[in-house]
């Protein structure tokens, strides 16, 4: 009777056991739009190779200079100018194209994560790390870190090709000197291997400290009313300063590590030129090497010496991204981990196509039956245990009980918003295996105790993408018609962040309208009347009952609501105590 099996697959693997490798994830991103990436690659490789041509032309110039030729080589100099102009033009094209590609790389994981969180089946509770503010830092910073890997691959490809050509050319002049330029690469790579793990921990600590700061900002300003009414501004200032100081400590250390790697790259260029001079001193003095050759070395050595910088950077970015890929995977439903970056159309150039209207739905609601539903919240044993419940078509079923009895948990467990450890749910007799995907409009709509409104027009926050034909009806049932009369721009009035400019009752009624506009067969309500006055509540009930589809499952303490109930579910300490 209780089937726990459907939840066994969702036990969370530790982050170590199934780490998706960064290169694989990044390559998935490349494959998502190979054309854009290909264009980027061609442009950047061309740009990285261009100094070689300039360096060769310069060698010719210096050879003529040392040969004491009197006529200025105008054609050569003009060719150099031409090369330079071409080189920088390529850079501009590459940069503009890259900025578009960059947004594309970010959009793919973002769309995937948001889809996974908001659309895909499976409970989302506990998948979001900390606050929405911290989650945003994942959508921003961690996605940036992943994109940097794709970016650095462009540069590494360009540098490796350019360095290879440079090495071959230099080797044809002086093999020993050419070989000497390889020394810094080895040293830089060695350094990055040795420092790698330490840098990775530093990076993670810095990121975490950053996440704490951003979520603190988000939380504080999300709860600005509480801060203000309590005159807690000074205390918030102080706490913010503490968190900032901690973050600065971690960030400084992290940046020092990054700078060390960078320095290994830049510094080796000049050092290597010195080493080359040391090696060629004898043959240059003997006249085996020309001044042009020296100039060529001076131009090509930086190209080769750039290699460790980029490879070091690639290593660092990969390590950064390892952390980020893990953190991104945590946001995804576990089953989607392997395909955290499913192919995605980004719609960047022309914007997304118009949002389609919902599919029509014909299935008629008959009965909802729940058996043995169990949700364990935490180790302290809060939650609900073994709850049975039936809702028939046209009925009003009321869940009631004292504070903390598990009323909201029952609704959320039923809807699949939190993970149930056991229980069977049947809709019209058929078992529901994935409640989070099944209990959505037009089957079920949900009105939480404290609805979240978004900073947009009232119409938008109620409709959330639906066509507007039902809006007026829904607003009317929700008793928002009179409030609307007082709004400057009617349903187009922008309501502040989280509906700040609406009263508590108005927020709840807007939430009700949001559920009603979806014409659900079953309306699930978590304490509708808690923020409503007597008259409004009565009116809302009358209007709701007069409306066609009114099967309602709701949490309430109101005696008159309980009186109306066709069935009653009384909870205490997470267990059902009485029947009807």
């Amino acid at each position: 009777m209780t089937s726990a099996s459907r939840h066994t697959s969702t036990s969370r693997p530790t982050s170590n056991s199934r780490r998706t490798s960064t290169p694989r994830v990044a390559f998935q991103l490349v494959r998502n739009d190979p054309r854009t990436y290909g264009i980027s690659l061609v442009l950047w490789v061309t740009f990285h190779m261009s100094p070689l041509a300039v360096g060769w032309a310069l060698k010719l110039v210096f050879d003529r200079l040392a040969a004491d030729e009197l006529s200025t080589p105008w054609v050569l100099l003009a060719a150099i100018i031409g090369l330079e102009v071409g080189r920088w033009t390529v850079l501009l094209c590459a940069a503009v194209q890259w900025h578009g590609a960059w947004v594309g790389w970010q959009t793919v994981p973002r769309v995937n994560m948001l889809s996974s969180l908001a659309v895909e089946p499976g409970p989302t509770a506990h998948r979001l790390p900390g606050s929405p503010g911290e989650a945003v830092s994942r959508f921003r910073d961690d996605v940036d870190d992943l994109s940097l890997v794709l970016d650095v691959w462009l540069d590494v490809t360009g540098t490796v090709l350019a360095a290879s050509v440079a090495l071959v050319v230099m080797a044809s002049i002086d093999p020993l000197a050419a070989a000497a330029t390889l020394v810094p690469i080895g040293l830089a790579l060695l350094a990055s291997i040795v420092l790698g793990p330490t840098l990775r921990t530093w990076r993670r600590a810095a990121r975490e400290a950053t996440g704490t700061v951003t979520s603190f900002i988000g939380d504080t300003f999300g709860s600005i009313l509480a801060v203000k009414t309590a005159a807690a501004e000074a205390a918030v200032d102080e706490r913010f300063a503490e968190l900032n100081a901690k973050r600065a400590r971690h960030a400084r250390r992290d940046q020092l590590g990054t700078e060390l790697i960078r320095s290994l790259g830049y510094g080796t260029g000049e050092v290597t030129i010195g080493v080359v001079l040391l090696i060629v001193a004898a043959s240059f003095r003997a006249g085996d090497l020309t001044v042009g050759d020296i100039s060529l070395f001076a131009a090509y050595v930086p190209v080769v010496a750039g290699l460790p910088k980029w490879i070091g950077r690639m290593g660092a970015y990969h390590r950064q991204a390892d952390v980020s890929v893990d953190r991104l995977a945590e946001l995804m439903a576990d089953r989607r981990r392997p395909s955290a970056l499913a192919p995605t159309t980004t719609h960047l150039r022309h914007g997304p196509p118009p949002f389609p209207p919902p599919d029509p739905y014909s299935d008629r609601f008959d009965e909802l039956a729940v058996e043995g539903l169990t949700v364990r919240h935490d180790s302290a044993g809060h939650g609900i245990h073994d709850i049975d419940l039936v809702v028939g078509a046209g009925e009003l079923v009321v869940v009631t009980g004292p504070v903390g009895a598990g009323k909201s948990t029952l609704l959320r467990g039923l809807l699949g918003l939190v993970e149930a450890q056991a229980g069977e749910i049947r809709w019209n007799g058929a078992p529901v295996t994935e409640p989070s995907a099944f209990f959505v409009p037009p089957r079920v709509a949900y009105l939480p105790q404290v609805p979240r409104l978004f900073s947009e027009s009232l119409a938008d926050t109620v409709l959330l993408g639906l066509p507007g034909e039902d809006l007026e009806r829904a607003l009317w049932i929700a008793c928002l018609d009179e409030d609307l009369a007082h709004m400057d721009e009617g349903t187009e009035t922008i309501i502040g962040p989280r509906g700040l400019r609406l009263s508590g009752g108005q927020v709840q009624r807007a939430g009700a309208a949001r559920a009603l506009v979806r014409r659900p067969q079953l309306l699930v309500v978590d304490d509708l009347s808690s923020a409503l006055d007597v008259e409004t509540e009565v009116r809302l009930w009358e209007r709701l009952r007069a409306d066609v589809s009114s099967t309602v499952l709701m949490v309430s303490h109101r005696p008159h609501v309980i009186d109306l109930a066709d069935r009653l579910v009384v909870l205490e300490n997470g267990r059902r105590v009485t029947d009807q």
Partner: protein
Amino acid sequence: MVCILLVALVLRLAMPAMLGWFVDSAIEGRSLSLLTWIAVAYVTVALVAEGLQLIVTYAAVDLSWRAGNRLREQLAHHALRLEMGWHGQHSPGKLIERIDGDVEALVTFFANVLVHVLGNVVLMVGMLTVAFLIDPWAGLLLMLTSAVGAAVLVKLRSAAVPAREAEREANAILYGDLEERLGGLEDLRANGAGRYAVHRLHHNSARSWRRARRASLLGDGSYVLAAITFAVGSVATLALGFWLHSAGVITVGAVIALFRYSEMLRQPLERIAEQLKEFQKAIAGARRASQMLTTEPALPDGPLGDEHLAGRALAIDLDRATFRYPGASEPALVDVDLHVAPGTHVGVIGRTGSGKTTLGRLVLRLWDTTDGTVRVGGIDVRELQTRALRSRVAVVTQDVELFRASLRDNLTLFGSRPETDDRLVELLHDVGLGRWFAGLPRGLDSELGGGRGLSAGQAQLLAFARAFLTDPGIVVLDEASSRLDPTTEAALAESTRRLLDGRTALIVAHRLATLDTVDEIVVVDDGRIVEHGSRLDLALDPTSRYSRLAQLAADGALDEEGLGA
């Protein structure tokens, strides 16, 4: 630090000259040991220069974090003190971008401006000087190149700033929208609106894409033009060197050194330009930061401190108070005259949206009246320090806002109402959260927020506990028990009585049973006070609105007695 920076620069400056010296020595057939010595010196100088650079960078990073954090704290400090109307227009997600994202751009810029930009400017001056010493004409030519290059940069950079700003604005919208949607995930999921959230993300990303490319075209375009200018300068230097050498004025080594300088001239430029992007971001960020800092609070602090609000209970007086929310066409309160004597308990009833909540907000001075005055303890609230006022007015609202912080921090609001742990635990028991608290493994250190293990009703009890931590002269209970079941509410009654005892209270409620003990009743309708009198008088007067509502409740449909009644 400046000394170290200068030494590093001088070392860099020496290197092209050493290369020229090496070439000349070889051509002139000097000894191999001299050549070797120059090469060794070259390597040493390069190593030392890099080491010094590292030290300077670290120092700059350190400095920039200090400065950045100070700015972050200033911005947060200022924003916290701006009025609710301002916050109505700035979502938390946007503020994260303002306080952290923008400052981050500034910090990055700070870290680099000292090391790369400032250092490189000095380096350029040094190189020009050396070039002059080699040959005045060459020096002049390099100077000209730098001047033109710099002019190109300055001229075009300013053209790119608005585009950069538009790009950041697009990103701020994108992140702000994401933050709100992530906060309302359950609302989205259970109402089948997840796909629409994804649609919006697509829409916002497409805007970012357009703006990023446009900003790049303008920003990187200026960099590229300047780079071409410098390339032309280098080639011109080469041509000049050719001519000077053939005239016998300078050696081959000197031409090489000059050319290296002309190329090195581009290096600082590249470093500066690398920072240019940051610079543009930083300017855009700084502009918005200063915009925020110069936003004057619409509710400036008054001069009077809490010594003017002495006494256990304080009077509330509203004189012809009218208030209209920004953007609303109708005022929320019209011509309200309300006088509450110290110690009086007043029940406020009326339909949702009638202005009950606004009444409390005016007393707290979350808003200023559009017309008329609000006095607390006989003093116009505009004359009072906001902090003093709010420390004497306690509020419990229907929507309790919890912080993702420890239970202790949530109670004391980050220590703004310091209290011993024992007293806090006692308070939790008083308000009926004892059993819940006993189940917390980490006690007062347990992390709260995000709906973790706390129902809306329990959150409301927590808000009561918060109120007990102050010594309020006025208590505003705004639907404070709306999320409590009657049993819990009854259990809380004793504590509430103690909280209200001897204090002035404004109790907004739609459950009349909650108001059984108040002294006076105020009925609000459509922003006006339509009835105000002693509760007993109104109850006895069958024509009063209050008695009619009470009758309605008594008729059974709205039975407000306990669960078992």
